[in-house]
């Protein structure tokens, strides 16, 4: 898949979640997304970036402008070398309860994007890839 441009962002602290949101917003605008699609992508990225920091112990977010020949898209790859997710099924179910933040936001993020891939190994880390097409 031809990658037109890419940029990697470090995910260490809570402030980095804001940076990722702003970067994804800028790139989504450049990819020509409508306002609603921009908002969905930025929100999905925010959810996963937060997971990477809070549960993955920090990691990287790589933004990529992609082109499959007939359409443009935006892909963001989140990687961490954290504890990994032991029960992926469970992680994908929604937990939006008030109180402690048990919800991993992954199920919700999946609904906001066109493609969602998650791979994780306990003790090694997690990789989440989200893609939206124009």
């Amino acid at each position, binding site marked *: 898949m031809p990658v037109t441009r890419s940029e990697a962002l470090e995910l260490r602290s*809570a*402030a980095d*979640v*804001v940076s990722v*949101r*702003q970067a994804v*917003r800028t790139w989504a605008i450049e990819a020509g997304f409508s*306002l*609603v699609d*921009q*908002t*969905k992508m*930025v*929100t999905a990225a*925010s*959810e996963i970036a*937060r997971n990477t920091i809070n549960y993955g112990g920090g990691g990287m977010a790589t933004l990529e402008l992609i082109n499959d020949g007939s359409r443009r898209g935006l892909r963001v790859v989140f990687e961490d070398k954290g504890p990994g997710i032991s029960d992926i099924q469970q992680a994908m179910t*929604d937990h*939006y309860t*008030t*109180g402690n*933040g048990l*919800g991993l*936001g992954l*199920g*919700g*993020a999946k*609904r*906001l994007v066109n493609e969602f891939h998650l791979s994780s190994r306990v003790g090694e880390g997690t990789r989440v890839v989200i893609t939206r097409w124009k």
Partner: protein
Amino acid sequence: MDRIPILKLRDLLLVTIQVDMHDRLAMQLQDELTARISETGARGVLIDISSLDIVDSFIGRMIANTAAMARVLDAETVLVGIQPAVAITLVELGLTLPGVRTALNVEKGMALLESATGQAEDLPDTDAGHTE
């Protein structure tokens, strides 16, 4: 360090969130609001997010938590100014903000709060909606 200002208007507290909040700032706001409600005995809280172009699950939970704590302190919360794109995303995300009433703008929100807090009897509680 930025702080989000909380205004007192009669017995209502008004918060306008204009910055893209990072998690710590959001928690700070939640704590401050709860403290102010308790200090002032405010009966209503109006949270204006008309400047926010993103509301993710963390912010949503913060708002829902604030409303829950406010209710324990006998105050009603109304959230106003959700942008259309944000509303559509929230619905897709499945974030329902239980226990939080919503209104289109500050004016309607204040009217809603004033009627909610001025009533002697309890109004029926609808999920994130208007009272009839």
